[in-house]
């Protein structure tokens, strides 16, 4: 029976290794400098890259972070300081509920609120949908990280005459900074690869666009379009795009891992 649990460990790690292996085998050959700097070409013409999709994904991550990080960290501060007010209890519970919300539901919500009334798809709507997904994640990790900070530290600052808000921001928040950065990175890694919330908001764009009021291309959307297309060349590009996407996600995840290692010993995910 004990051997069986070893087998489970092998079986559970196998899919990840297989996926990474296939991504490298099938995707690496299509990756060149042109992939990052060129625009997609029409089918039939060789070459072409995903420059617009890569930039689009970065812009979407930027919008999402600008919304998700400050609100999430603020809410986390509230939860860590007002541990048992009715608001804190309901925020904690609802943040967990939001974390489990299917991303497609977030997509149709953003469409209903930001695309339907305005009348056209936009990068902003996509970024808001992703940002809304970040809020509960960042809230919960920030709270967890702040709770690790010893009370004595807070008390010492208060005893020195610091006002409460400065104690929170320049003592407590600073002490937990590495952990909060980790939480933020994990949240970014999670939304970077999201596709479903973008289907009806950012929509995708064949052309170069950096305007937040226009539809914008995104790496995950492009992979989806290419993978479900009939052309073999586009499948190649989809594999290459997936390799780039997963590299971005893995690098962020690893960075998150190492951000906390030095301070807290046990990494947190």
């Amino acid at each position, binding site marked *: 029976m*004990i051997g069986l*649990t070893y*087998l*489970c*460990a092998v079986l*559970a790690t196998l*899919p*990840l290794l297989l*996926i990474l292996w*296939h*991504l490298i085998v*099938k995707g690496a050959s299509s990756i060149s400098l042109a992939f990052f700097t060129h625009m997609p070409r029409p089918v039939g013409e060789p070459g072409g890259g995903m420059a617009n999709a890569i930039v689009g994904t970065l812009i979407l991550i930027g919008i999402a972070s600008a919304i998700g990080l400050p*609100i999430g960290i*603020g*809410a986390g501060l*509230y*939860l860590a300081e007002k541990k048992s007010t009715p608001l*804190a209890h309901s*925020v904690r*519970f*609802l943040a967990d*509920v*939001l974390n*489990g*919300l*299917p*991303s*497609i*539901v*977030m997509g*149709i*919500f953003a469409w*209903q*609120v930001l695309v339907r009334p305005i009348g056209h798809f936009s990068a902003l709507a996509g970024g808001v949908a992703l940002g*809304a997904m970040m*809020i509960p994640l960042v*809230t919960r990790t920030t709270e967890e990280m702040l709770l690790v900070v010893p009370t004595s530290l807070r008390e010492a600052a208060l005893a020195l005459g610091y*006002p*409460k*808000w400065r104690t929170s*921001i320049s003592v407590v928040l600073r002490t937990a900074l590495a952990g909060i950065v980790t939480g933020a990175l994990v949240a970014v890694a*999670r939304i*970077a*690869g*999201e*596709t*479903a919330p973008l*289907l009806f908001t950012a929509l995708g764009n064949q052309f170069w666009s950096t305007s937040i009021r226009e539809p914008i291309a995104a790496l*995950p959307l492009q*992979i*989806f379009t290419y*993978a*479900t297309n009939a052309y073999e060349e586009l499948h190649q590009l989809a*594999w290459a795009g*997936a390799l780039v*996407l997963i590299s971005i*996600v*893995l690098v962020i*995840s690893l960075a998150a891992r190492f951000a906390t290692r030095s301070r807290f010993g046990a990494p947190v*995910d």
Partner: protein
Amino acid sequence: MTSLPVEWLEKDRRKLRVDASAFSDKAYEIVTAACALVVPTLVVAIAVAIFVAAWPAFSKLGFSIITSSDWDVAAGHFGAAPALFGTLVSSAVALIIATPLAIGIAVFLSEFSPLWLRQPIGFLVDLLAAVPSVVYGLWGIFVLIPILRQHVMPFLRDTLHLGATPLFTGPAYGPSMLAAGIILAIMALPYISSVSREVLMAVPRSQREAALALGATRWEMIRDAVIPYAKSGIIGGIMLGLGRALGETMAVTMVIGNRAEISASLFAPGYTMASLIANQFSEATNDLHLSALMAVGAILFVITLIVNAIARWLVWTVSRNRAA
């Protein structure tokens, strides 16, 4: 004599400082509370926006939206029963595959793994949760489905003679409920195993030692003393994985075949609620169609809400016991 005004001044200054910090403390409190308020506001806004948009479909179609399997846009029939069925079946298949594996690996990591292996394997399993779902879909289309079509499906149907059961009959197209279930199993696995590992590690030492002292082997100790103790937390983890599987969109849309039929066979293509929305939303032709898709989204929202609430509650009861 001259010291008096200075003292007053000093007093005044202190009072000013206290007032200033009282003001900024208040401002700080209001700002953080406002951030916290965003979370409940968001939940309410999502619920209201989606239900308002879904209302025309609910009022016009009534229960037929979940009982009828006739989805005909041109005729104005919107019965999403096949999608509901597909969501439930693909998630069930996923849990049947993922649960034993996830618990196995959680037991391995918390009980048997050599220390040096614990971190890397735990990390690899956690990374499964970080892989974007569109990448799973891509892998599913070009790697998993050919393997299923050429090897696994014929093996199940012909070699094991499972073709006699309704579950494994019919032609092996590839895109199928089975493919969706397997992909979902891989995606749900890290959620189940990380919660299970945490609750297994929270089982008190005394519980293990008591079992060993009674003469149990290590395996008997785990089976009879550790797992029962952590049971509700593990079930919570499984529910959490279920919540993921129910709402998963891209990977499923890419491998399930997207055909709105109810079939007992896992080899047949199917549809899920999430993939129905993903496929048709941007092409919704009329208001009722759009509203019906919103209604499907609303049902999905309610189902995952309930599943997640139960999951959180179960995990919470275990962690509360640990604190006590």
